[in-house]
């Protein structure tokens, strides 16, 4: 049988794309663990390991070629992203449960790579957030000395949350939200936060590190600009408008951009191509939608951070967005470009 054109050799590069994403995560992971300690690494390792194991088992069960799909790297990234989203030092069973859920229910039951309508990592994250709200909102205080014995006992699942008394602190997003609900102004709330160069201690550095990795991916065209810019634009626009309306009640743009999972979400999570919009214009709307939803949920919803919910909600809208944002075929419609 004669093959048809094109005849130039083509290399499958999915694994290369995925590898680049992993490399781009490194500065963020390093910075994150600089502030929070080994809990970040343990999170990432447990989640990624579980993800790869779950992927292997599912591939075996579905009788798919193992090597080809394991090497595509997508499972690894799902694990990494989930591990980074969950509070450091999380008990192992939490990570194992989340990662297996993400891979099995979020990915393989939909048909595996390329067929999942939802971002698997975020699906796993949201299931954990709803099922184990206490564990999922316990963050160690990055300013304190590491109390490794207690933390490792917690991670190993030998002790419960109560043993972590005095080691934890609210995240800046959580703190400001709580303070605002107590009729304090933004300024008052921020004064009680440990300061950082942009927004608040630790989190602005972590966000900057993820931003760095994201810009590197933009530069080497691993990702496209539309989704991150749409997301940061949507979030920034909302934050700006509300901040201008009443700066006492609404923290500004920098607080939102450099807190929580904003940069990780903008460059690494929302840009998952499988579950995102595929048309150039559609990607902008997709990003904008996520940005706006993040702001709305953070400000008026019940959760301090909202990247996972916003991403999943916009995943639902992807077919609609794609349908209404076609490209302009050569020679049709309005003149040039």
């Amino acid at each position, binding site marked *: 049988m*004669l093959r048809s054109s094109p005849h130039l050799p083509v290399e499958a590069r999915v694994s290369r794309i995925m590898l680049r994403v992993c490399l781009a995560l490194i500065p963020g992971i390093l910075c994150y663990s600089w502030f929070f300690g080994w809990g970040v690494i343990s999170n990432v390792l447990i989640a990624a390991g579980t993800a790869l194991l779950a992927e292997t088992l599912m591939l075996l069960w579905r009788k798919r070629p193992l090597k080809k799909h394991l090497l595509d790297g997508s499972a690894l990234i799902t694990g990494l992203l989930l591990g980074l989203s969950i509070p450091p030092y999380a008990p192992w069973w939490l990570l194992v449960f989340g990662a297996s859920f993400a891979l099995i229910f979020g990915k393989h039951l939909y048909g595996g790579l390329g067929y999942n309508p939802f971002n698997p990592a975020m699906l796993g994250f949201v299931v954990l957030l709803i099922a184990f709200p206490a564990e999922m909102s316990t963050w160690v205080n990055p300013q304190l000395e590491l109390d490794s014995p207690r933390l490792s006992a917690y991670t190993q699942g030998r002790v419960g949350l109560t043993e972590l008394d005095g080691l934890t602190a609210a995240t800046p997003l959580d703190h400001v939200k709580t303070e605002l609900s107590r009729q304090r102004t933004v300024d008052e709330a921020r004064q009680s936060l440990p300061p950082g160069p942009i927004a608040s201690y630790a989190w602005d550095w972590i966000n900057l590190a993820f931003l760095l990795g994201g810009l590197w991916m933009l530069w080497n065209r691993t990702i496209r600009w539309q989704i991150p810019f749409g997301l940061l634009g949507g979030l920034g626009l909302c934050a700006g408008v509300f901040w201008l309306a009443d700066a006492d009640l609404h923290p500004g743009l920098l607080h939102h951009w450099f807190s929580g999972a904003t940069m990780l979400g903008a460059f690494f999570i929302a840009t998952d191509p499988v579950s995102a919009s595929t048309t150039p214009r559609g990607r902008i709307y997709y990003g904008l939608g996520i940005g706006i939803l993040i702001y709305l949920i953070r400000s008026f919803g019940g959760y301090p951070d909202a990247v996972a919910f916003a991403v999943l909600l916009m995943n639902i809208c992807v077919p609609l967005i794609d349908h209404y944002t076609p490209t302009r075929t050569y020679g*049709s419609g309005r003149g*040039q470009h």
Partner: protein
Amino acid sequence: MFGLFKSGRSGQSGFHGGLTLPGHKLHGEAGRIRPAPLPDKVILPLSQHIGAPTRALVKVGERVLRGQLIADSDSFIAAPVHASISGTVVEIAPCAVPHASGLAAMAIVIESDHADEGLPTPDWPATEDPFSLDAQTLRERVRRAGLVGLGGAAFPSSVKLNPGSSANVNTLILNGIECEPYISCDAALMQEHADAVIAGAELIRRVLGAQECLIGLEDNAPEAAAALRQAINQADYGDIEIRVVPTRYPQGGEKQLIQALTGKEVPREGLPLDIGIVVHNVGTVAAIWRAIRYAQPLISRIVTVNGPGIRQPQNLEVRLGTPVAELIAHCGGYTQTPRLIMGGPMMGFALSSDAVPVVKATNCILVEVAQAEPADTTLPCIRCGECVDVCPANLLPQQLYWQARAKAFDKAQELDLFDCIECGCCAQVCPSNIPLVQYYRYAKTEIYQAEKEKRKADIARNRHEFRQQRLEAEAREKEEARRRKREALKQKKQTPAAAPASAKTTPANDAIAAAIAKAKAEKARRLAQEPASAASAQPDAISAAIAKAQAQKAQRLAADSGKADPAARTDQVAAAIAKARAARTASATAEAAADPVAPGAAAKRKADRASTTTDPVAAAIAKARAAKQAASASGDTAEAVAPAGPAAGKQDAVAAAIAQAKAARKPTPESASKPHAKTPDPVAAAIAKAKAAKAAREKPS
């Protein structure tokens, strides 16, 4: 600001998307044009162009001379074939020919007598000053020289030299862009025969009445640009401008080239002519010049033999019909087990063997090294959208792929599947290594197939409906006859004194009945004028049969005139195009194989478009019917030809086809009254028929 981030593949000037591919071109001395040795035998396929195949004019055993016309066609869109060597015709039979389908096709095989003896006098005279010839003569000679687009599309050149009286050509563009890797035959030609290119350009510019002439070149052929500049400076033709654009694939595609050079886009369902542009390949232009100036028919062309699997890659001047194997042998043979591709690596097609001949459209024989079929590295689509960024037609290849895969062909068409030029950029960048273009070809073929079947079903349905109507009409007539009979009987009972009479014809000698009959005849006459009333008064079966025969004859005549008329008119182009379109729709499947970047393909796609867009089915059916009716002037379908006759007589043959189709769409009850028409004039017959039918309808009431 956003433009900054659009850079890379899509933000460059000119057309959207595209790729930068490694060139692998033959430059300098390596790329010089060398004559290939005369072949021992040539295989000349009867169809080396887009359009109707030619008919062999020679017989097996006949001796032919170089340049002798050996096959021709009456069709307007066709190009004759000439013997490329002198020798004996040894075979006229299906042979392996270069075609994407890999199917055999009729070809004339000539065995060389090694004399290479030319015709004593050429078919048309060489012309010292070609610029003195009028356009009609030029077109005629270009056609007789068998010239087709040499860029790969092989659309008959004479057709493209005839933009029609209404067209307004502003710009002639010469396509000197060989965007595919490895191919350098045009670059070599421009470098070594720049004067022929420039002179040909000026000749064509004058024929078309274009104000300006642009020659598009990529920046990877600086020697060609320099040679052309020098030729322009030496000649004093003026308005010929060289535009060098950055190398990017598929810039050599007609639409992309136009966009890159002028910034204009060819309308989706249109031709470059619609925006005042005509594009010719530089090789074609030089060949046109040679044909006019030196009376040389198209019997050779420049072919690049290149690729990692050939020992001595080079550009060769090759006699048409030369088997590829002889070229390979001349180039030192294969280095390893070869994989042969005709054309470039992006859009060429694989050859099944090296026994196939070089044809008019062969610009390159690419010798790749055969590799063991790699393990299946295809991964699922991850919707990354890289294909969207590189698509020169600005489609959504990824969504097209999903729809084609899901066999949702209607959705694929909504996504403008037929605007895909199959350039292969998407497949080239796909990180999952999905053979995207194959999916698009598959979808296109399936759609063509479905349309063909639908057309068949429509014809069958029409026949059925027509039969139903005929049966109903017959039943009505019987009922009518019975009613009259009853009436007659009734009257007979009432007036037993009256003489018996045939119930079917005139009622009786009875005064009342006579009055009724008279009134009826009067009414009929009022309604239907002469022929119709005569018909209604003519109950005799024999005369009806005669009338029927006459009417049929009249319709056959009308159909014939409808067929022959436009072809006899001065404006043959429109007619020919219409015919070609009709024919093409009939054999739509063949199109999947044709080169889509081709200029001819644009015309072709225009026809397709009509059959695929908003009201695709109706248009396609209409065309199919038009074609069918033109072919068969008997039976039910001939009915429609008669009214269409006058329209076909007009110069606009397309309108005729539409009219025919429309007429065909409503095979009305009128046809039941067909036998009554008597006049030989088809128009009058049609009018009469209609009127008769009306009369017939109104009578029973």
